[in-house]
């Protein structure tokens, strides 16, 4: 199964295509799609470059990235695993 992800234009944050192809911030809210539907959704969000920057598909099992890039996708979903960004959220 696949989900559609991208970075948000305004601030670069990780987003996913959720219900009605709306951008959502949580991986858990991303729509999990079969291959064919995923391609359709990808094309649709690619046509909305004012929100979705560099959209692409991620292989998942349920809502867990499972492809070769699973570690990268896990870090994209949950943020850096270490460091100062964990100390303080933006004002």
């Amino acid at each position, binding site marked *: 199964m696949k989900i559609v992800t991208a*970075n948000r*234009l*305004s*601030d*670069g*944050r*990780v987003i996913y295509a959720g219900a009605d192809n709306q951008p959502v911030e949580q991986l858990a809210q991303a729509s999990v799609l079969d291959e064919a539907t995923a391609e359709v959704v990808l094309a649709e969000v690619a046509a909305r*470059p*004012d929100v979705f*920057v*560099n959209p692409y598909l991620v292989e998942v099992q349920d809502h867990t990235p499972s*492809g*070769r*890039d*699973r*570690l*990268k996708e896990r*870090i*994209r979903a949950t*943020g*850096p*695993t*270490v*460091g*100062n*960004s964990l*100390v*303080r*959220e*933006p*004002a």
Partner: protein
Amino acid sequence: MYRYDEFDHALVRERVEEFSDQVARRASGALTEDEFKPLRLMNGVYLQLHAYMLRVAIPYGTFNSRQMRRLAHIARTYDKGYGHFTTRTNIQYNWPALTDLPSILSDLAEVEMHAIQTSGNCIRNTTTDVFAGAADDEIEDPRPWCEIIRQWSTIHPEFSFLPRKFKIAVIGAEKDRAAIRTHDVGLQIVRGADGGTAFRVFVGGGQGRLPHIGQEIASRVPAADLLAYLTAILRAWNLLGRRDNIHKARIKILVASVGLEAFREEVDKHYATLRHEDLRIPEDEAARIQAYFAPPPFEALPKASAPFDRALLADPDFARFARNNVRRHRQSGYASVVVSLKPVGGVPGDITADQMDAVADLAERYSFDELRAAYEQNLVLPHVKLDEVPALWRALHEVGLATANADLATDVIACPGLDYCSLANARSIPVAQALSKRLADMDYQEKLGPVRINMSGCINACGHHHVGHIGVLGVDRKGEEYYQITVGGSPDEQAALGDIVGKSLPADEVVPAIQRTLDRYLEIRTDGERFIDTVRRVGPDPFRDAIYETLDAANA
């Protein structure tokens, strides 16, 4: 320090206005990402895993307290309260919003800073010896020449669309503290035949997936002809360099493929013409720029300092700091002080906004308002009275910046890795942190002496693993993080690439393997031999054995 003239101010202001308009058009959707990408890269803006990243230039690593306070303000206002210093002596912000970039660049312009040429296929920030103007072994301060290169290269029309990026480093001493032979061009100030300033020129150094150590292409280029010679090198590469394959576009590939002699002939052809043109640096202009870098008004002080010596005896922690982080100065009674950004278990190169403000205050109070960003991702206060080093140390201690590990095993150079970077294959920071915790015992570190450990999260080698005494490269093996270890690399005047010791290790094996490597060194070193000396004497084999000795065959 150099101060902007009206042209510099106008140039930076115009660039801010231009980029503000580009950002507005991107935010409105009028520009696509493909159209915007080259424009943002010309202004230091990347799109990383979690956010945009802004890289701000610190030309040749020299800045002042006002600029540092502005960097703190940006970290606090537009980011998550911290910044990250890089091996290119720049500072990166990991979390700015696209729409805040114009405000950030405006704030920077007010203090004579910018992000121009911190990315893209142009001539990047020129770097130098962090102790420039302070080191006691320097024949001439390299920073005026860095500034001349900056002025010449900034938005240079011929060199704004190069085959790839181009990095220049300049040193003024025999001792190379700026890793010049890992740069596209490395310049070493020497005395010319007439006794005047000249440059020994290295070309074709670089790291990444195909690392090369720079080769000497000229032994004495007269200072007045420096820009003619650099133009000749860039023109030869710009015309002959490959643009069809990004991995083969750097000048190092061209020099290696045609050979140094053939490349020199090409350069000399251009140089023969160029040196008679308008590129000669007028003496009065060189003198005008050099005047900005005149030594600060040092006091005439005795060599020894009673307050310094008393503190050495009174406080073993200060004595340790003095041994490891205080460097000799050309001026009697003064020292340069390394402010380590490598606390135990910290993120190499990271500094909080509050710490930035504190360092700014200390630079103003103790170091003639001067600060330096170091290649090793540390800071330096270049000109501190020995009398005042104890007070400075106490103040650094209060803000968590007195880690006494400069050039020791926990002074790890590391790229942001897969925690932030969209190019990375593996994380760097957690490995650096684990190493720092494992080797935290200062007695052990001092027993080891100077050891440089470098971490890169991918083959692009931003953590300079090829030239680490011990290098660690993150690789992806079927979706798992593995790490390849090299030993024997060196970034200095005896520059060398490390030898890969064998197959890559799983993440949790890296730190124990490095400790075994260091322990093996302690067993086999001879008196006075540094880690790198021992590696050069015995080769990588004993260390390979140490690295793999406890690993079962299935893992190795």
